Structure formats: structure tokens, C-alpha cells
């Protein structure tokens, strides 16, 4: 997803399951761009947009913590369905932060997006990387994938990916070898134990995950194992006896989720791993809403959190002092 081809540039390559026109429109139609632009949890307001050479796009990004960030983009090259070059972050008083070149190309109904962000110096690059990481800036390109999926199939998905410094076979092994899997799956400070594991098509795992919030049990069932390309499994919470249950803190969380993991080779023996999550089987509108709310993270601000909190408190019987 990201590599430094020059000491002052960041390159990002993504392939989208959508025709070129859909990706171009998502980038250029202000109504569409408002639905995915910016890190997860951010929303934007466009003040003006003039998509032509020399034209500018003025917009404000609203952070999940309520902070507003004014932005100006100036277009240097606009070649429909092919190429965009723009300077980002400058205004009347300061020079642009970086220059972005985006190349679009379509192969077999899939669209490749190749971005290069150039900064003035390697120091600026290091600073920009830190800012992007801090803001979760790379999630923008995941949100674009989610948006395109929704436009074409009306399906709600959650996408996240990362590029690892390891060859694809090895990355695949990390997911299907139980000894490896239990060493890293789960948030910081958690411990995954595989109680039963049979990782093959039609097989499954039963596991516990212990962490700050106690111990949870879960089961996964493998629908497809296509080494070293793809892995598909369903997943649900359960109790110690493997009976399907709900997460105590999220009772309206969908009962079954489908996880697709896609492994793609990148240059220099790197592998991009993309995880795609969606609600599986029959889910109530309330469950789908819970999934969407969770995906947008802090977008709902405290309002959204509090709604879920009320739900949790009501369902768990916690006494309100």
C-alpha cells in the first residue's frame, strides 16, 4: 500500500472491484467524495470545487474530536479517467504540503489506482508520514473501497489493509497455521487460545480471547482456502460450550460475520493483506445499523457512543447509581 520509491515520496497502489468510471466519479463528484474522503471518523464540507487545471477545491474536514481542518487543493493536471495531479494543503499564506499524482487504469473490470505523494524533503516526508499515521489517513482508501461496494451492490462492508515486509506464502502461513495465528490475532494485550483448530475448507476453530475486557469465546468456520491468495471464513461469538451467543457489550452486534482475507504481492517481497468484513446471513436492520455505526467509529461522536451505551446498560442490567 505504501512504499518509498524516492526518499521524499510515498507511493500507494490500490485495486478496486469497480469500473474506472465509478472510481473516477467517486473522486470527482463532490456529492460522492463527501461520502468517503478523509480518515475514518472524519466528515467533510465542500465550499467550492473547480475541477480543471488551475482550479481549486476548498473544503473543511471535521475531525472526530470536533476539530475542523480547512483544506485547499489546487489541480495541476486533469485528464478524465486517467490522471489527476494536485497540490495539497497550501493556501494564501503557506506553500502546499505535498503534490499528489494519481493514475487510474482499468483491467478486467477492476480499477488500479496508483498514487504518489511528493514532499519537498525527506524530513517533510517523515513528518507527513507521522501525521498520516496519527490521523489514520490510510483508512481513506479503505473507505473508498467501502463506498464503491455500496454504490455497486448496496452492500455494507468494512475494509482494512496493511502491507507487510514478508513474501506472500509466509503471510498466508500466518493466517492458516494455528501456531502462528494465535501469536498475533487480537488487540494489544490480548491472548488468543485455540481450544480446537482444524483449518481447512469446511473445518473450523474454537478459541478464547482474553484481554482487558475479560474472556470472550468465538468460532470461525472456513468456507474457502485458496493459498496463497484468499481466505474466507465466517465468525461468531459463543460461550464456553460453543453455543452461539452475543457479545455482552454489543448485544445487537450481528450474529455472524463473513471475513475475506486477500493477499496481494507488492514489489520488494512485500505483501498487502486486505481484510473485508461484512454481515453474513439474515441480520436484522438493527444489527446492520450496529455494524455501520461501529465502522464509522467516532463519526457519531459521543451521541452514537451514548446510544450504544444506553443499549448496553439496559440489556446488561447494570444498576445506574
Amino acid at each position, binding site marked *: 500500500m505504501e512504499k518509498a520509491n524516492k526518499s521524499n515520496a510515498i507511493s500507494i497502489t490500490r485495486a478496486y472491484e469497480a469500473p474506472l468510471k465509478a472510481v473516477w466519479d467517486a473522486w470527482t463528484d463532490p456529492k460522492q467524495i463527501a461520502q468517503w474522503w478523509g480518515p475514518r471518523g472524519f466528515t467533510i464540507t465542500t465550499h467550492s470545487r473547480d475541477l480543471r487545471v488551475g482550479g481549486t477545491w476548498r473544503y473543511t474536514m471535521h475531525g472526530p474530536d470536533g476539530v475542523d481542518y480547512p483544506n485547499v487543493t489546487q489541480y495541476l493536471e486533469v485528464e478524465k479517467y486517467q490522471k489527476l495531479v494536485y497540490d495539497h494543503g497550501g493556501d494564501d499564506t503557506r506553500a502546499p504540503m505535498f503534490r499528489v499524482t494519481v493514475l487510474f487504469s482499468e483491467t478486467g473490470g477492476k480499477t488500479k489506482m496508483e498514487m504518489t505523494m511528493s514532499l519537498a524533503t525527506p524530513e517533510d516526508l517523515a513528518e507527513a508520514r507521522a501525521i498520516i499515521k496519527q490521523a489514520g489517513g490510510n*483508512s481513506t482508501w479503505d473507505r473508498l473501497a467501502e463506498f464503491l461496494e455500496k454504490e455497486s451492490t448496496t452492500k455494507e462492508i468494512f475494509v*482494512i489493509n*496493511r502491507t507487510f*515486509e514478508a513474501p506472500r506464502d509466509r503471510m498466508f502461513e500466518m493466517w492458516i497455521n494455528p501456531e502462528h495465528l494465535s501469536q498475533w490475532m487480537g488487540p*494489544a494485550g490480548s491472548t488468543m487460545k485455540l481450544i480446537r483448530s482444524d483449518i481447512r475448507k469446511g473445518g473450523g476453530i474454537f478459541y478464547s480471547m482474553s484481554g482487558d*475486557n475479560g474472556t470472550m469465546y468465538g468460532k470461525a468456520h472456513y468456507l474457502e482456502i485458496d493459498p496463497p491468495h484468499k481466505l474466507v471464513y465466517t465468525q461468531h461469538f459463543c460461550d464456553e460450550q460453543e453455543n452461539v451467543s452475543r457479545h455482552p*457489550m454489543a448485544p445487537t452486534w450481528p450474529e455472524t460475520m463473513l471475513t475475506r482475507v486477500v493477499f496481494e504481492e507488492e514489489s520488494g517481497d512485500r505483501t498487502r493483506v486486505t481484510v473485508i468484513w461484512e454481515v453474513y446471513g439474515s441480520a436484522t436492520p438493527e444489527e446492520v445499523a450496529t455494524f455501520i455505526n*461501529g465502522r464509522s467509529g467516532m463519526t457519531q461522536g459521543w451521541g*452514537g457512543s451514548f446510544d450504544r451505551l444506553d443499549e448496553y446498560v439496559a440489556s446488561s442490567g447494570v444498576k445506574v*447509581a
Partner: protein
Amino acid sequence: MQSHLDQTFSALADPTRRAMIAHLSRGEASVSELARPFLKSMSLPAVTKHIKVLEKAGLVTKTREAQWRPCRLNAAALRDVADWTHQYQKFWEESFDRLEQYLKTAKVKENKKGKKHGKS
């Protein structure tokens, strides 16, 4: 941790206390400032009791710097709640972080094993 979160959640489950949190999210405030909007509908001791619940849950601290000891929001405790609400982004980010680390340690082990094959 579980009980700590429970306490945080139950403290936040009350609309009066949530309004107080919203007030404090705009900056610190004295007890009387915090109480003012509620005094039409409840007594001062009742308001103070709400503040105490927030304090006990670790959501609000009283600073010692100023004589009037203003109330301040404890960002860390609120972050725990926020973490829970967007935990699946967090779940994967942190899993990926751990996987990156694990790849490094597993690589070291394999390199050691692989030495006899001639690569040093």
C-alpha cells in the same frame, strides 16, 4: 477492567451526568458553574452527588492547582469508552501491529534454524 468499564458506563448512562461531561469537554469548570443549568430541577446536593459519581468512575477529576478546584474531564477514562465503541478498527490495527512484530521475531528464529543450509 471489566468492573471499571461497568462503572464508567453506568456513570455515563445518566442524562444529567452526560450533560456535565459535555460541559467539561469545552473546558474545566467549577462545581457551581457545572451545577447552574440543573438547579431549576434539582437541589445542589443532588447535583453534587452526580459530580461525585463521575469522580468515582474516574471520568472527572478535581484539580488541586486553583483554590476553587475546578472539575476537569479525564480524557483517559473517556478514551476507554471510545476504544470500545470503535473497537473493530482497533482490533485489526492492533492485530496488524502485533503481526508485524511477530514476523520479526519469527524471522530471527528461522534464520537461526536455516544456518546449516549455508546462508549465514
